[in-house]
């Protein structure tokens, strides 16, 4: 709860710093404020016994864990933003503010205990992101990404709201524990509109997390947005979407899994195949990463399909591993694009000779994406697959392993380009912040891969 207050106030402070032209203070103040929010969040571990604010929010360990994860990812992304926004526009403070407001919405999304807070958090986050996607005002791709994201986001919110209205009609409450009680009190005959509500909420949430067949906006929006904003969407926003999805389904709808599980199972399998097979045919590195993000959404859906005691932990480990690997990949992409002006695989040629450090961290990130042992990505996949096996979804795991093998092809294309293809290029210069973020993310990825027990026994 304290971290939410700190982040909201921090956003306003940063806005005022922009008003008083204190441009050099923006980044230090934002990062220090976020570190304070992180410390406050961690201090609340094990202390959120009951819902607060008249049952609106509940800072249980789930909320604390995901708040910390999103705050850490945001700190890493903000450190990359040194000199980035200055190139786009004069008014830099607004971007920091909007990112922080989006983060405030995300903290509400991972800690809600009432469907109205889910809606409010989701909208605070989405409206901020519509603006962020379009911050390159003169750039057509950015314009298009912004408009598409806005129309699709508002459309999916409509579905989510209709679902919430139907749940309210059946259970007469927005409170998660009252809805859960309504479900358990009526084991035989639930009101049919309750089932319709579940389906509509599922559609709305699948839109938000970018699961097929509702993924069609993801590639366009991720590719058109400025790369730093894409990083934010692919890591923090995706984490928050899955946390909100899992929170709703594990608290309220777990007893009804016979009803919604087959649909979600089909969505998972379609998402895995569409994401991976389309990613195979991309020549653009950024577009490949967006399709790989669709396929990773498929892996993350495993935790909801095989809903059980370990689901929260599995999705936490997976999103942490995926966020770190994405931050590395997108950060190096920013550097490469600055030098060569292109986002294709070819622009990575010869990177291994000139910038051994960058090539090494990209290799770690690709191995983590592909789920090779000794990286955090492997632990994430291992958790997902074992929780699915516990619920006897053997065919799902077989299909997922086929997909993991497909994905190795396109992740290794980058590694091959960096080390085995030669090209005339100059050494990339990066500032200290980049080195810090890249080094830290790569080290954490490897450490989590070697000592998974650091985060696997959290819940």
């Amino acid at each position: 709860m304290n971290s939410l207050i700190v982040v909201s106030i921090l956003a306003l402070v940063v806005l005022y710093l922009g008003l008083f032209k204190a441009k050099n203070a923006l980044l230090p103040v934002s990062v220090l404020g976020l570190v304070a929010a992180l410390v406050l969040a961690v201090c609340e571990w094990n202390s959120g016994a009951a819902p607060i604010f008249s049952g609106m929010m509940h800072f249980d360990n789930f909320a604390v864990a995901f708040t910390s994860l999103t705050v850490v990812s945001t700190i890493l992304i903000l450190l990359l933003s040194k000199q980035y926004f200055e190139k786009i526009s004069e008014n830099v403070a607004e971007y920091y503010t909007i990112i922080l407001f989006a983060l405030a919405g995300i903290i509400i999304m991972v800690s809600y205990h009432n469907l109205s807070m889910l809606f409010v958090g989701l909208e605070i986050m989405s409206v901020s992101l519509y603006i962020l996607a379009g911050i390159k005002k003169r750039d057509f791709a950015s314009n298009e990404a912004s408009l598409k994201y806005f129309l699709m986001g508002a459309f999916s919110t409509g579905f989510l709201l209709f679902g919430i209205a139907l749940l309210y009609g059946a259970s007469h409450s927005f409170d998660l524990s009252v809805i859960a009680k309504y479900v358990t009190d009526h084991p035989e005959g639930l009101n049919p509109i309750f089932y319709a509500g579940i389906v509509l909420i599922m559609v709305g949430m699948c839109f938000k997390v970018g699961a097929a067949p509702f993924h069609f906006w993801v590639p366009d929006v991720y590719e058109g947005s400025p790369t730093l904003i894409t990083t934010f969407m692919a890591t923090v926003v995706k984490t928050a979407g899955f946390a909100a999805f899992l929170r709703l389904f594990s608290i309220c709808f777990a007893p009804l899994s016979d009803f919604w599980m087959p649909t979600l199972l089909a969505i998972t399998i379609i998402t895995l195949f569409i994401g991976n097979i389309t990613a195979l045919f991309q020549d653009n590195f950024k577009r490949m990463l967006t399709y790989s993000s669709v396929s990773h959404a498929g892996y993350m859906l495993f935790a909801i399909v095989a809903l059980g005691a370990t689901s929260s932990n599995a999705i936490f480990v997976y999103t942490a591993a995926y966020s770190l690997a994405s931050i590395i990949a997108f950060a190096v992409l920013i550097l490469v694009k600055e030098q060569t002006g292109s986002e294709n695989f070819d622009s990575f040629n010869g990177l291994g000779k000139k910038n051994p450090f960058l090539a090494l961290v990209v290799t770690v990130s690709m191995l983590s994406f592909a789920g090779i042992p000794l990286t955090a990505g492997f632990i994430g996949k291992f958790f997902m697959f074992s929780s699915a096996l516990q619920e006897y979804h053997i065919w799902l795991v077989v299909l997922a392993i086929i997909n993991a093998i497909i994905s190795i092809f396109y992740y290794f294309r980058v590694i091959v380009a960096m080390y085995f293809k030669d090209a005339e290029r100059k050494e990339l210069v990066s500032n200290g912040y980049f080195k810090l973020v890249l080094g830290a993310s790569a080290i954490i990825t490897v450490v989590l891969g070697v000592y998974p027990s650091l985060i696997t026994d959290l819940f």
Partner: protein
Amino acid sequence: MDNITATIQVVPLNHYILLSAIIFTIGVIGVLIRRNAIIIFMSVELMLNAVNLLLTAFSAYSGDASGQVFVFFIMALAAAEVAVGLAIIVMVYRNTNSIDINVLNRLKW
């Protein structure tokens, strides 16, 4: 207040559900088949208002005010969305001189 609730309850609840479902469907179809960004946007608003109607009806029937409070949340956030959305549409119009979403196909498969 009792008066309004009584008036709302003159019509059976199922009729409200059907009416909002129909309005919602009109909104969904509008988003899917129209090509003008403003009209798509209006259709989205239609979807949200169908939800508002449904929530109000449920709230009056169950004698619980929280549904009506939720309607205020939806109205406030829909207004925020309108502010941002119209700004985005203006930005697109300045660059392309059109608000037909078919011109927005520079990013493709």
